[in-house]
């Protein structure tokens, strides 16, 4: 089976460019490296260090007390639950959208692509307000929802919706170029050999997009955990109920509980670091699984 992908088709060219780069004079190389490292240190390592320092400044016990507190635990639970709902939804949507865009020709395709990108372009605060206008009790659907005693805004469903909206492009965006590049020859071959559509998806398409899919899920997960602006608008900030981790951090900071704020921040940062570690591990696996002949 031809499941080996052509993702790294640009590699030989990249390698050539890399060789050229190393032929630059030493001072150019060192200046560039220096600039990059200084930048990284200033804008990444330093803030990370500040968060960790602030979190553990007063010892592990204080850190643990800040985490093991009902409101903090509720915020952690809520954030994780939202991720568990949002990521699968966007997974299904992303695969479906990328499949449709990459493998079929239809009218209005550019519009669909632009629409998928929209959540990236709209400010999160506006996203929140859109849903308040839609579901709020002064909004379009508000009276109907109230009559049926359904709560969307200022409750967990509202938070899920805005985060799903904000993270909608991640998986689709990851898959579309990949699937377009792969073309539809393999699927067509499978179909002409008599496989059903479902079987083709399962045995031909999915293995081909596996890594891109996992990568998209990881990005989507990271963003869903961290989303702040839109959630702040629709959450209602009920303690222990509709405060996600980022909102809880803001609450703590505003209440002068700096150590606790940093402790929860460190946990959120930790989750992000784990995400990145998993991503790197998967990339490494991907490299390893690729036979030598394919990677160059």
């Amino acid at each position, binding site marked *: 089976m031809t499941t080996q992908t052509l993702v790294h088709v640009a590699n030989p060219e990249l390698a050539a460019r890399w060789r050229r780069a190393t032929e630059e004079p030493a001072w150019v190389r060192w200046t560039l490296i220096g600039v990059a490292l200084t930048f990284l240190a200033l804008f990444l390592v330093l803030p990370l260090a500040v968060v960790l320092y602030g979190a553990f400044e007063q010892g592990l016990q204080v850190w643990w007390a800040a985490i093991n507190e009902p409101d903090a635990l509720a915020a952690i639970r809520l954030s994780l639950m939202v991720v568990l709902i949002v990521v699968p939804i966007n997974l299904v949507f992303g695969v479906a959208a990328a499949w449709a865009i990459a493998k079929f020709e239809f009218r209005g395709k550019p519009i669909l692509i632009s629409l998928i990108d929209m959540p990236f372009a709209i400010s999160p605060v506006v996203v929140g307000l859109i849903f308040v206008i839609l579901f709020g009790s002064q909004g379009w659907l508000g009276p109907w929802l109230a009559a049926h005693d359904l709560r969307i805004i200022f409750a967990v*469903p509202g938070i899920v919706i805005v985060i799903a909206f904000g993270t909608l492009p991640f998986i689709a965006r990851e898959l579309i170029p990949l699937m377009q590049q792969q073309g539809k020859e393999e699927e067509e071959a499978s179909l002409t050999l008599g496989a059903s559509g479902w079987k083709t998806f399962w045995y031909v398409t999915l293995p081909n997009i596996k890594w891109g899919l996992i990568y998209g899920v990881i990005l989507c997960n990271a963003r869903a955990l961290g989303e702040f602006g839109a959630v702040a608008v629709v959450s209602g900030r009920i303690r222990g109920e509709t405060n996600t981790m980022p909102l809880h951090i803001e609450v703590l900071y505003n209440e002068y509980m700096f150590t606790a704020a940093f402790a929860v921040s460190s946990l959120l940062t930790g989750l992000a670091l784990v995400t990145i570690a998993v991503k790197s591990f998967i990339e490494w696996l991907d490299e390893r699984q690729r036979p030598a002949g394919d990677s160059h």
Partner: protein
Amino acid sequence: MKNILKNTLAGALATLIAGSALAADINLLNVSYDPTRELYREYNAAFSKYWQAETGQSVNVRQSHGGSGSQARAVIDGLDADVVTLALAYDVDALRQHADLIPENWQSRLANNSSPYTSTIVLLVRKGNPKNIKDWDDLVRDDVEVITPNPKTSGGARWNYLAAWGYALKQNGGDEEKAYEFVRKLFANVPVLDPGARGATNTFVQRGLGDVFIAWENEAYLSVEQLGKGEFEIVVPSVSILAEPPVTVVDKNVDRKGTREVAEAYLQYLYSEEAQRIAARNYYRPSNPEIAREFADKFVDVELFRIDDVFGGWEKAQNDHFNDGGKFDSILESLTKR
């Protein structure tokens, strides 16, 4: 697109149902403003105990805190508050003006203008009071920098502004022109106008900007307690404004949820001796004069005026001073032109 919406709603609905398994007999939601967290944490525990003893029912009071204006907005948009306990009557009245959630006479339903506790505006200075700031007059001196948030966006800052204005009126026999000039000079001494009270606190305390910070009394005590004992001092001016943070039941919500009885009891009990002491311990001035006497050493005696008496109520004050084209706009304009 349709699919995702359906999926989202289905998932959301599932969590909604799972999430509404109630531990207590009754759940109340108190939507409040930022600095009342400690107050209500202590009070909610006291009230639950009281209600359990009285009726045998357990009550769980959930809290939501945020900027007073935005909290009112959230209730208008459907945040399911049983009671609101906000920073100023103007924000509470918005519930009536924009959504008809409470009746017109809401503020006369409970004693003391529905304000079980009050506060006032004081001046926070750095240790040892290096600029020797004693009263409002010192805030218009050329060598003094003043920190206060923007009255356009911060409820607390409006109290600050009106306190200064009221003082100037008193000094000048009610001359509005002179009051305007006084407040204009005061704002000329403000290096940064933060949008919110907590941001302004950070400007003064963390960033170390300014010589004096105009703050709510309870906020000032909190800053002194939590952000560095001995680094700041509270200066109580000769005259200040009586800040009345009002409370009310949100009628439409409690009637729908069937929580009116307990919600009303929740607010009534704020006037009890126990609750008044809790308020005082959290740096709010108790409305019960006897309890206030118990805490006399904590709250300096100061001549306080009411917004109703000097400015004709919040709505008028808002219109005259803070709405677009009001006096504060004109002050800002004259300052940027310089």
